[in-house]
């Protein structure tokens, strides 16, 4: 456990030195502040301001997760850090889990910054302390953790460029797969085609589970079980991805 924590801390330190990280954070905060001007465009309608600001927190965190998840592992390979670390009494599993945990910590820090900016914008627009907004951002973070887990898994057998392609594709598929099933039911698709859509639905991570932005925007109460089940789903899925990643990494020649 200590080894995992040491790798995580080093990963965190390494990633927060990246200038591009700050560029994205600054751009994200500027976007959030620009929501104040967007608010004027939509006559200060709070649900619309919330939707723009929540979209900003999600969009920029997704960019960060994609950037971090698909480059961090390969940077360690390029800089020979992975050889140095694995020559110490650190197992490959500990290294991989440490990388994952470190990246999650970086995203936790950026999420906290975005959340403060979000609450500032909504508070300024008269929305008070938006608890539902915090819950929505928290679930967005859980989604990003799953995203990082997938990127970490893909990094164990792929190249950096292909990792970006695979992770982006799964990200997109994860958001539309539940709508695809609903549409297939609506237009009465049956038989093999429907089974195929269903198979995709169960295999791909269903990222719509983490999307409660509309609940937060329209101030609709959310059952606690929705939140708990989404977190449990992410935990199980991320564990599976990491176990598979460790297995592949253990059998890989580096």
């Amino acid at each position, binding site marked *: 456990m200590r080894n995992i924590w040491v790798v995580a801390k080093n990963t965190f330190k390494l990633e927060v030195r990246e200038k591009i990280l700050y560029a994205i954070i600054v751009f994200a905060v500027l976007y959030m502040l620009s929501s104040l001007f967007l608010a004027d465009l939509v*006559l200060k*309608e709070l*649900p619309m301001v919330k939707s723009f600001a929540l979209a900003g927190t999600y969009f920029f965190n997704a960019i960060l997760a994609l950037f971090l998840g698909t480059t961090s592992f390969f940077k360690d390979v390029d800089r020979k850090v992975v050889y140095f670390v694995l020559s110490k009494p650190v197992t490959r599993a500990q290294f991989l889990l440490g990388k994952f945990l470190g990246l999650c910590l970086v995203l936790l820090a950026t999420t906290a910054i975005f959340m403060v900016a979000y609450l500032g914008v909504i508070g300024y627009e008269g929305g008070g302390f938006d608890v539902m907004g915090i819950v929505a951002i928290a679930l967005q973070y859980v989604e990003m953790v799953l995203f990082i887990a997938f990127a970490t898994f893909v990094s164990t057998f792929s190249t950096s460029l292909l990792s970006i392609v695979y992770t982006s594709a799964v990200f997109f598929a994860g958001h539309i797969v539940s709508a*695809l099933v609903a549409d297939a039911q609506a237009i009465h698709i049956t038989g093999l085609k429907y089974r195929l859509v269903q198979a995709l639905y169960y295999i791909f991570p269903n990222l719509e589970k983490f999307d409660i932005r509309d609940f937060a925007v329209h101030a609709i109460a959310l059952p606690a079980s929705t939140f708990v089940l989404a977190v449990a789903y992410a935990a199980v899925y991320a564990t599976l991805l990491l176990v598979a990643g460790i297995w592949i990494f253990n059998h890989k020649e580096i």
Partner: protein
Amino acid sequence: MVSRFGSGMKALIVILFIAAIAATQYDYDLVKPSGPPSLASYTSPEFVRLVDMGFHSTVASALWAGTMPEILDLFVGKTEYVSDVAYVSSVDPKLGYPYAFSVIAIPAIPAGRFAGQDASDTIALAIGRKGLENVQNDWRIPYYMAIDYYLDAKDERSALTYFDVAARTPGIPDYAERFALNFGVGANQRATTEELWLTIASSTNDEATRERAQAYVTRLQIFDYLEAAARIYKQARGTYPTSTDELVAARVIPEVPPDPFGYTFVFRSGGHADIDVTKPSTLAQPLLQSIVAPK
């Protein structure tokens, strides 16, 4: 000689290209649509919902920001606004503002502008009804519908019903709640309003609506009762009471009847009874009680 000919040819080719660009632009201007195309001409709202990665409210808000100014086109007979509001609402049915804005703004457009369609107030009310189906926490939709019914459709009964819906919607500000709850309670309107509530109570199949209609009637009777007591008070004391407690202290009435909706009765100038909606209701359920005539 050849060189001069070559330079001339190059210049001619450049001029021809510039002329071709200008001609293309001229042709484009001739065939381009005169106004912005409706949103539905791009793609279906179902497809937008499929690919917007869960950002239904963000996409709908952005589309609404572009749709809102189209309401001005209604004055010149272009009705893309109406279809675009339906489009925005299909992308995010819970977005309340497009419904509320349409309900209050469309009736301002002369009905004759909607050639071959329903009158503008009917279009507005149809949008409002759809809004009420989808959005339960935006008081503006029933409130503006009530105004439409009262001012444009001259339908006081429906106006009363929708003001009642607005008054019960969470988040309604005090000033709007006060107006909604007091709609039709002026001394000169009270008899008509009471009659309307009685017809609502006798015609509805919904027990909750009947109970609320009866509560409104009770409240109107309490207003009459308190104002009658205030007049008796004035005859004895020379001035109108400033609070209902003064009536009890002067033994004009034995007690102040409780408001069926749990609010406090107050007196405005001239002995007009009113309710104080700045204080929260004390009752979860309406209380119905018979009225004792003032002494």
